[in-house]
Each structure stands twice: as structure tokens, then as C-alpha cells.
């Protein structure tokens, strides 16, 4: 709503016209208007009751109905003066009331007429018909309701600078509660949707149309799912004028906290509660009020980011080294600083890593939290003490801090450059050695020893001998055949030998039998020579038959052996003595017959019989 003048100016004008002649007053005019005919149950609307030239002692009865709730009422008076045709002036006094109402239910409702009761007459306005829908209905007058630029803005005595229909930036216009509409708590969150770890600001206000004395106890809700920290806790109540749905309120900030959600999902900030004292001194009243819950949607960080990028905000990493060339035993200070916007308390700086030759001690950490325009941030400083352990030049790798920038929606990295440190043997080391002392001080100081310690990973192997993955020998196809084949081959050879021996033994017996048969055959042939008149041939054949028989039976050639040797061989072969004598006698007869063939057929027949008897009785020996 816009007011068109200063209250004090209007009051002065009213005093001036009060002295004017009563005859100059015009007729009574009385009516009421509404700024919209279609509203929602959650909307407020304005009814303007205007009365012009109301007589002294008049009373206005405003429209009252159970279907409507009156949220506020304001009054203004306007007086104008104009010259009439007869030269006398005409003063017109117009009084205007603006009622802010809200429907209690949906439907086609009728707002009763307003009534003006004068000493002489009673006036009524027309009733107003409204269509009320559940919830909210867009206000067609909203665009027109925007305030035009006020050319007198800032000049004292003009306008009402504290009156504004525009909500404060970041603070939506609150909904007036149906009960306790004179005094209520309202919590705002500056974001409806944010990422895990991103900052949101929770503001808690008390809206009042009463005289607020103090807020005695404020109970903030448990902020489950959030990491929170106070940003603003006013020690004194400082109000500011606010129009809420056309109703003037004074809004007092009670608390402002920054919230950093720690998990994704739909999170709810539960209502705050407060004990509030209104009025002053003996008229004071203590009221309990409970605020509203606020919901916020928390999104997880987008996938695909670095694993250690858990911080959200905008950060810059820096590093500072006290010196890059030191003597052995002298420490170096490395300061690692992270500064920017975000939740400083939860950031984790990348640890300083160095070669084993540089011993890094645990850092000391200093935090300096700041807030700028409600955005939390600050600076975290970690100070490392680095003690060289060996001489040489060593490179300390740069650090990387990964974070998620919620404004750009991208993962970012802040890096520091690697730096090198040169460690020298020390002033008391080499020079002292050169100057003569046998054991210089540096060599006695453990801190200045060039410590050669087996630490860290063993280095990679420089050259490779490549091997195929080893397959156990027993899985190779030749293993079993070879392993089983060796004993099998041996057994085979053994069996073959035995078989061969067996076969060979059989052949010798056959041969003996064959030889024996041949000997007998030869003896039979000799019998044919008996009568042929050739005794030498006869006895030769008989002797050959006997010797052949002995060859077969003794298994060895006996031809050529002396008689004694033959006897020994036969004795060794187990031939009985009688048999030996018999054979010896037969051989003797044959020998005598061959060299002294004087005997007749009878002698030859006797020799033949002796040889046959020796041969025939052999197997029975």
C-alpha cells in the first residue's frame, strides 16, 4: 500500500479546515471496495472503506463475518479545499480505512456491508462477493502494486522509507499464521537446493505487531544432517518494518547460523521455539511461540571427481619454505596455507611428503575463520618442521588440494610447486676436518650425521629377465609317460631276458636230444659198416657217435679231450662211475679197433653193443 503524504502534514491541514464554516461541508458519501474478487485461502486482500463528509459523532462499523479474519486496519484522512461559485470555499474531508482480510474457508463468500452511523442517519455500503479458492491465487494487482520510484526518497518529511512491500533479498515473504498472527517465529534458509558441504544460511526472525519487550529463551532445533555454526546472534532486539501480505510487522532477527549439510537427501530443519515477553512493566505478557520447519534438498557431489575432493567452496593452496639450502642438522620450516570460502573446520589439507632424507615432523595447525557478507571461510595454516637427515639435493613434491566449486558446478584443484632443498655437510664438518682436529665437532653431533637408513620402498629393478609363467613339471604332457615309462621299460627288459633265457634253455635241450638222436643214427649207420669189411671206418663211426652223444649230453664239445679230462668232465657232470667206465671202455675198443683192426665181426658187434649200451643207459644214470 502506498501513502501519499506525511502524517504531520495531514494533521496540520485538518486543524486548518476545522475552523472553516460548517455550511461549507458537502453531502455524506460512504462505500467500500475490494482489490480483488478471486482470492485463495492463504491470500490476503484489501478492503477499502471510504467515507466522505461524515458528520461529527459518526461511527463506522466495519464488515464482520466468521468467514473472514481481519489481519490489520489502517486509517487515513484526506482534506481538500476548493473555491465555490459564490466565492466561498468548499472543504471536503475524506476518511479512508484499509482492512487487510483473509478468508477462513473456500467458496463463494459474501463480505457484509460496512455501516456508518451518524446522529441523524445510518448508511450502509454494498456487500462484496468474493470467490475463495483453496491455497493461493495469483494476484492480478501484483504488478501494479509495485511501488513507482519515489522522487522524494531520502528527503526528510516525505514518504515512509521504512514501509516497503518488497521482501528483503533472500527472504521470501512469510505466510501469516492463522493463529498467533500478531507474533510469530519465522525461519528462512537462503537456498532450497544445494550440494553436500555447501553453505546455506538459516535466519530466524520474530514478526510482531505487538510491543516486544524481550526474547527470554530461544531453543534452536537439532540440526541433524548439518554441520552448523553461529553467524549472527544479536544481543539486542533491533526491529525493522516489514509489510507481510499488506500487514505491517516489525521483524527482529534472533539468530543466523550457517549450515553445511553432511549428507545428501531431503533434510529438514526442525522448528525453533522461543519464550517472548511483550508489553512493558506491569502490562508485560510472556508468550511461547514455535516457528516453522524448513526443508532443503541436498544433492550429492557429482561423480567423477577426485577421491579426496570432499571440500566444497573456493580455496587456494599456498606454500612457503623458510630456506632451500641448509646445513645438515638445521631445520627448515614449511608453511602450507589454505584460504578461501567454505567450511574451514572440515577441510583436510594434503600432507606434506618428502624423501626419506628429509624427516617431516607433525605440523602445528592454526585456523582463522572469517565471514564476509554471510559467507564463511578463512585460512588454515599448517607449519611443518623438516629436519634433513642426509646431505644432497632433495625435491619435495608439490601439493594438490582438490575441491568442488558449487558455483561453477565443477571440481577444481589448487596446487603448489615442488621445491628442492640442498643439504650441505655443515660448517663444522668439512672445514673443521680440513683444519686439523681428528674428530671434528660435527661428527660427534648426532643431528649432523649423514644418516643412511634403509627406509621407504626398495627401488624398481632396472633390467628384467623375462620368463613365461611357470607351469609345474608334473602338468606337462611328457612327465607321466617318462616317469611311468622308465620302470615299465625296465620290467619289459627283465621279462624279455627271462623269456629269452627260457627260450635259449629249451633250444639246448632240443639240441642235445637232436645230437643224441644223431649219435644214435650214426651208431645205426656204423652197424651197416660192420659187415662191409672196413673196420677202421666202422670203429671211427662208432667213436664219432659216442663223442657226439657225449657232446649232446654234456653240453660241450668233448672231441680232442684226453681220456682223463673226459672222465673229469663227465664226473663234473654227475655221470656215474660205472657209466664213465662203460663209456671209457667203449671208446677204448673203438680206438683199438681203428688202429688194430684184427677182430672179426664178433669183436665189432661187441663194440657196437658196448656203445649202444652206454648211450641207452645214459638217461638212467
Amino acid at each position, binding site marked *: 500500500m502506498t501513502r501519499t503524504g506525511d502524517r504531520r502534514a495531514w494533521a496540520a491541514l485538518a486543524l486548518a479546515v476545522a475552523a472553516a464554516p460548517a455550511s461549507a461541508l458537502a453531502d455524506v458519501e460512504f462505500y467500500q471496495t475490494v482489490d480483488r474478487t478471486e482470492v485463495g485461502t492463504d491470500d490476503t486482500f484489501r478492503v477499502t472503506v471510504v467515507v466522505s463528509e461524515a458528520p461529527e459523532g459518526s461511527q463506522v462499523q466495519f464488515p464482520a463475518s466468521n468467514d473472514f479474519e481481519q489481519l490489520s486496519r489502517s486509517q487515513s484522512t484526506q482534506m481538500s479545499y476548493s473555491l465555490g461559485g459564490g466565492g466561498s470555499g468548499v472543504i471536503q474531508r475524506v476518511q479512508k480505512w484499509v482492512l487487510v482480510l483473509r478468508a477462513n474457508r473456500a467458496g463463494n463468500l459474501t463480505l457484509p456491508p460496512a455501516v456508518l452511523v451518524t446522529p441523524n442517519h445510518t448508511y450502509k455500503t454494498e456487500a462484496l462477493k468474493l470467490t475463495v479458492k483453496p491455497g493461493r491465487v495469483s494476484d492480478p494487482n501484483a504488478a501494479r502494486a509495485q511501488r513507482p520510484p519515489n522522487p522524494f526518497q531520502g528527503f526528510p518529511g516525505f514518504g515512509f522509507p521504512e514501509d516497503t512491500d518488497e521482501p528483503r533479498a533472500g527472504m521470501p515473504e512469510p505466510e501469516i499464521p492463522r493463529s498467533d498472527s500478531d507474533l510469530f517465529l519465522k525461519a528462512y534458509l537462503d537456498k532450497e537446493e544445494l550440494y553436500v558441504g555447501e553453505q546455506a544460511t538459516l535466519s530466524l526472525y520474530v514478526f510482531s505487531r505487538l510491543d516486544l519487550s524481550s526474547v527470554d529463551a530461544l531453543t534452536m532445533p537439532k540440526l541433524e544432517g548439518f554441520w552448523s555454526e553461529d553467524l549472527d546472534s544479536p544481543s539486542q532486539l533491533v526491529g525493522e518494518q516489514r509489510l507481510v501480505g499488506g500487514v505491517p510487522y516489525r521483524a527482529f532477527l534472533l539468530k543466523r547460523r550457517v549450515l553445511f549439510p553432511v549428507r545428501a537427501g531431503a533434510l529438514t530443519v526442525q522448528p525453533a521455539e522461543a519464550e517472548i515477553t511483550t508489553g512493558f512493566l506491569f502490562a508485560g505478557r510472556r508468550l511461547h511461540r514455535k516457528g516453522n520447519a524448513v526443508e532443503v534438498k541436498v544433492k550429492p557431489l557429482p561423480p567423477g571427481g577426485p577421491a579426496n575432493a570432499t571440500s566444497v567452496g573456493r580455496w587456494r593452496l599456498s606454500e612457503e619454505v623458510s630456506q632451500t639450502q641448509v646445513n645438515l642438522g638445521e631445520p627448515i620450516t614449511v608453511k602450507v596455507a589454505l584460504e578461501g570460502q567454505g567450511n574451514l573446520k572440515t577441510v583436510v589439507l594434503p600432507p606434506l611428503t618428502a624423501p626419506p632424507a628429509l624427516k617431516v615432523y607433525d605440523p602445528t595447525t592454526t585456523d582463522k575463520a572469517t565471514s564476509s557478507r554471510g559467507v564463511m571461510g578463512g585460512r588454515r595454516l599448517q607449519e611443518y618442521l623438516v629436519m634433513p637427515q642426509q646431505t644432497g639435493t632433495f625435491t619435495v613434491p608439490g601439493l594438490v588440494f582438490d575441491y568442488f566449486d558449487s558455483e561453477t558446478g565443477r571440481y577444481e584443484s589448487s596446487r603448489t610447486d615442488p621445491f628442492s632443498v640442498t643439504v650441505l655437510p655443515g660448517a663444522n664438518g668439512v672445514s673443521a676436518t680440513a683444519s686439523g682436529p681428528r674428530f671434528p665437532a660435527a661428527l660427534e653431533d648426532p643431528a649432523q650425521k649423514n644418516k643412511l637408513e634403509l627406509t621407504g620402498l626398495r627401488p*624398481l*629393478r632396472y*633390467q628384467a629377465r*623375462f620368463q613365461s*609363467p*611357470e607351469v*609345474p*613339471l608334473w602338468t606337462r604332457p611328457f612327465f607321466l609317460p617318462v616317469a611311468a615309462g622308465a620302470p615299465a621299460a625296465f620290467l619289459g*627288459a627283465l621279462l624279455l631276458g627271462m623269456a629269452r633265457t627260457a627260450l635259449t634253455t629249451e633250444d639246448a635241450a632240443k639240441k642235445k636230444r637232436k645230437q643224441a638222436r644223431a649219435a644214435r643214427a650214426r651208431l645205426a649207420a656204423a652197424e651197416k659198416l660192420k659187415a662191409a669189411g672196413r673196420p677202421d671206418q666202422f670203429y671211427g663211426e662208432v667213436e664219432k657217435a659216442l663223442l657226439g652223444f657225449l657232446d649232446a649230453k654234456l653240453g660241450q664239445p668233448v672231441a680232442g679231450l684226453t681220456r682223463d679230462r673226459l672222465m673229469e668232465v663227465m664226473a663234473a657232470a654227475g655221470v656215474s662211475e660205472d657209466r664213465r667206465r662203460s663209456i671209457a671202455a667203449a671208446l677204448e675198443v673203438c680206438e683199438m679197433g681203428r688202429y688194430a683192426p684184427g677182430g672179426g665181426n664178433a669183436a665189432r658187434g661187441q663194440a657196437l653193443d658196448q656203445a649202444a649200451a652206454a648211450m641207452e643207459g645214459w638217461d638212467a644214470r
Partner: protein
Amino acid sequence: MTAALLLASVLSQAYYTPAEAQAVFGQANDAYYKEDYAAAQQGFQKLLDHGYGGSDVLYNLGTLYLAKGRLGEAVLYLERARRAGRAADVEGNLAMAKAKQLDQVVGAAAEEPFLQRVVAATSEPFFSWAFLVLWVGAFAGFGLFLVLRPGRRGWALAAGALALFAALGAGSVSAVHYTVATTVTEAVVLAPELKAREFPKDSGKVSFEVHAGLKVRLLETAGPFVRIRLPNGLEGWTEKDGVAAL
């Protein structure tokens, strides 16, 4: 099938010449020292994929994973390197990896079982080849004994008996290798965190959790689950993909 595998093996061996393989190895080493771990890993892995394995490649790959902080893979490849040949650097980095391992198996024997210690201390190819040669030699000696004339063959019998005795010794060691290889399957936990359940089901109650780098024994499989046994006898079913056999 066998012929196809053999052909594939021959082809894979021919992927690099020895000089090329050595160059890939050197490039991977250079990448490691420039902290380009991805390129170094790719190089070592390529060599392994194409049959150019061995203790050196396995050790370097394990050390690379250790530098990257991938404890499971680090222990896996260092253990494989250890199996391919014990060396001080392997033992050193393996000890460092195990020191970083999260799990403490309470009640585990200080040493591995006897058979596994025998396997760890002996070379399977050496003893298997020794067994095979001595075994064949022993029976060859016996065969000679049969063939040679009496009086000149006693040495063959003695040599055969001696070889047989030695073959049985080597064969015992080889048999231990065979027994361990066919009955004991060791594995390393690769997943950062792995739940061991009472039953091989997702709904099974979780008995305990193990973490990357822990060496376990695989007992049996059931679908996507495998039953593991810790050195102290603790057993549970866990996801097969979370472990890798040595």
C-alpha cells in the same frame, strides 16, 4: 584345443622381441620415476599380458601398486614375485605392504604350515626335473645290470640303486609341491573392504570384515561367493571378485 592354445602361446611370445620387451620395461620404469603411475602400470601389465613375466616385472608392478597405495594389488604381485624367486627387495617391500595392512589376524601361527614352508623354500622345477632324471637314470642302471655280463655289471646295479634313492628324495619334495598346489589355493584380498558372511548369500549375516592386502586361503566356491579361511582358522563366505588367487 591344445593346438590352438599352443599357437596362441607362440603368437603371444612373439608379440615383442626381447629388445622391445626390455624397452617397454625401461619406459615403464621411467614413467614410475616421473610418478606417471598409470603409464608405468600399463607398461608392466602389457608385458605380463603378452607372456613377458618373471620376478622382475612382477616385483616392479607390485612396488608400483604399493607406491600408489593400492595395497591389495601390491601384495598380490609382490607375493607372485616372491614365488618366482625370493630376493631381499621383494621381502622388504612385501614387509612394508604388510605393515600397512589393516587387519591383525589374532591367534595366527607365527609361521606358515610345514608343507607350505617346504614349498616356499624349494624350487619346484629343480626338484621335479631332478626326480625325473634320477628316476629314469635309476631304471636305466637296472637295465644295464640286466644287459651286461656277470662280473662286469655290479656298478650298474649300485648306480641304479643310488639314483633310485636320490629320486625318491627329490620326488618327495616334488610331491609336497604337488600336494600344496592341488589342495592349497592362496589369494589376496583386493577390495578395500570385504564382508565375510556366514552363508554364501547377500542376506547372510556378516561374520567379519577383511581389508585389502590380507592373504587368505580359498576353500570352495558357491556362485559368486567363495569361502575363505584366515591363517587363524576364521572362515567366511565373501564375494569372489574381491579376492585374487596367487
